[in-house]
């Protein structure tokens, strides 16, 4: 199965590698304040790709990904700030609890599909927020926690830090690299998973769930697993986020409507169901905001500055992409630059011209091979 994906190794993978290395070198050229913004972008990248693994691949839109992030963020904040538990313990606990939240959403998601699921998931962060308000003794209400949790890296101080250094600029750099390392690990894990046979089944589910069932595969466990994986990794990212300099255990940061919305926009921009796409989308989104913030100019006529109107620009950009390039920017660019290297798994609705197969066919064939009577089901048409 792996030759299909190795075939695409040249150029675009090197390009991606160069990009990642360049991102990793950003502390060299940025000021401390700029670096904090970039750390924020790293987390948006993580949030987006953890979203993509469930929603982008199975096509089941989750419009409330912030809820998983918030489960992670609040768990670690409550354990760490209120109960004094070390982040080394509280972050893994947060991850497990988020995974359970993923299970709680993933199982009902088997019954309610498509648009219903989208709306239900849209409701969940709102309910979570109401819970935060109702139980403000535990969650500290709409104003968030008063003191920060233990930082990933810091100069000591009252809340302590996992890594203690004596200069705060250095602490931010270490903070950046811890976040960057987690980003890489998450990326590799999700990339490997989605390119595995199990990941291919997810793409096949998005295309035609009935065909997957007909091939003798139960989509249910794959869908639930994707949701749990998505939630767990989002919980990990959310938990780390509140410990980093870019985040804080506050509902505006963990439960804002705009957080879930931004995750969807950046994933759509980059390309659903690619893992790389949402990362690129988040980088583009964060980059635009970063540039707008750095070179803030007043716009004539509108009495607004550039950074004020940037959300509107991003919504329009998102809509234009969905409208004209529903597959997203990354697949669209790949298709243009290297048409012969097109990976059929990325463009699910069409069969590759060279006789490549769609995920549904791949899954069906794979399943057929593993059955004793393999020859017959090869001829099935889906």
């Amino acid at each position, binding site marked *: 199965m792996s030759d299909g994906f190795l075939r695409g190794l040249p150029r675009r993978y090197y390009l991606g590698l160069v990009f990642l290395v360049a991102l990793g070198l950003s502390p060299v050229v940025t000021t401390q304040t700029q670096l904090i913004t970039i750390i924020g972008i790293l987390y948006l990248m993580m949030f987006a790709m953890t979203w993509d693994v469930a929603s982008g691949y199975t096509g089941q839109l989750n*419009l409330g990904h912030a809820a998983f992030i918030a489960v992670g963020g609040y768990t670690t904040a409550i354990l760490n700030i209120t109960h004094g538990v070390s982040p080394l313990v509280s972050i893994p606990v947060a991850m497990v609890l988020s995974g359970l939240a993923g299970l709680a959403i993933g199982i009902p998601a088997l019954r309610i599909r498509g648009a219903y699921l989208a709306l239900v998931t849209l409701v969940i962060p*709102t309910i979570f927020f109401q819970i935060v308000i109702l139980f403000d003794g535990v969650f500290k209400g709409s104003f968030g926690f008063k003191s920060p949790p233990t930082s990933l890296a810091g100069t000591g101080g009252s809340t302590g830090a996992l890594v203690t250094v004596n200069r705060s600029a250095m602490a931010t750099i270490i903070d950046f690299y811890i976040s960057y390392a987690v980003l890489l690990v998450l990326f590799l894990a999700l990339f490997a998973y989605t390119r595995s046979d199990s990941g291919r089944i997810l793409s096949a589910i998005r295309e035609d769930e009935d065909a997957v069932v007909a091939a003798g595969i139960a989509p249910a466990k794959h869908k639930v697993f994707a949701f749990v994986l998505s939630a767990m990794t989002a919980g990990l990212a959310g938990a780390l986020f509140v410990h980093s300099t870019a985040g804080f255990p506050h509902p505006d940061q963990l439960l804002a*409507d705009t957080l879930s919305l931004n995750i969807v926009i950046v994933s759509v921009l980059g390309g659903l169901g690619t893992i790389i796409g949402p990362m690129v989308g988040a980088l583009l989104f964060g980059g635009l905001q970063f540039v707008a913030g750095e070179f803030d100019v007043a716009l004539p006529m509108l009495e607004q500055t550039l950074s004020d109107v940037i959300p509107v620009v991003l919504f329009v950009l998102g809509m234009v992409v969905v409208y004209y390039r529903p597959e997203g920017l990354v697949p669209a660019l790949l298709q243009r630059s290297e048409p012969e290297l097109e990976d059929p798994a990325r463009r699910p609705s069409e069969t590759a011209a060279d006789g490549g197969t769609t995920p549904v066919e791949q899954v069906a064939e794979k399943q057929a091979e593993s059955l004793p009577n393999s020859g017959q089901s090869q001829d099935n048409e889906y």
Partner: protein
Amino acid sequence: MVNITNILISGIAISSLYALVAIGFTLIFGVGGVFNLAHGALLALGGFTSYFISFRYGLSPILGLVGAVVVTGLVGGVLYLQVIEPVEDNTVAVLILTLLAGFLIQFGFGIFVTKQTISIPQIAPGSVSIAGTGVQNNTIFVFVSSVVLMAGLFVLVERTDIGKAIIAMSMSEKGASLVGIDQRRMKLYTWMLAAMFAGFAGVLLTSYQTGQWNMGLQPLLLSFTIVVLGGLGSIKGSIIAAYLIGFVETITTSVVSSQLTGVVPLSLLIVILLVRPQGLFGRGVDTDV
């Protein structure tokens, strides 16, 4: 002691408002099978249009109401023709596009108009006394207009050709096409009608409570709850569900705790989806009038 009359009056008022809020969402779902995630933004559009007309330009609030209905109707039509219609068959694209369009409209108001709370002059100022309880004329206006509009909608759907065509489409698009119904036009009418209802509801919402640039999300979720509870696409079901939710909310907030505002409908939604996903009146029966 909780005042029963008060509960009854505010329950009726909020429920008839909820019915107006949800009906546009029901119509679009019933006919096109589309969840319009920009529905809440259309309410905000109604609220802001009337804010411009009757507050910034100081014209009559009635004119504000009419203007809001016209503007949202037009925007609804444009939204359908320019944004939704070309991608109608792609559920994911429709969801994302309506979501983004909705937030685009609302952020537009937040950025270019105001992030402050907006309020508009009351459409019917003054108050009267009913059974010893003072009732604002505005509240009565909400109730009466809701009843009149719903009755009008029933007449439209049952007695006119356009209404019958809309019902036919909600039953079977193929069948409707076969008997010569122009689908695109009927869907356009439905979107415009639904948007006009949303605009009307948005003005009343702003007048009854207050408005804000991001006022749309809560009513959107509420509409979804009502539509699910009432049975997807059923107009009658939606109205009954609106009253049910309105009263449950009024009773819990006034008897138990006012902190529960907003929590009740959402929690109900989750329970309904888990226990009875087909709604009170079943799904499948599209526009059971």
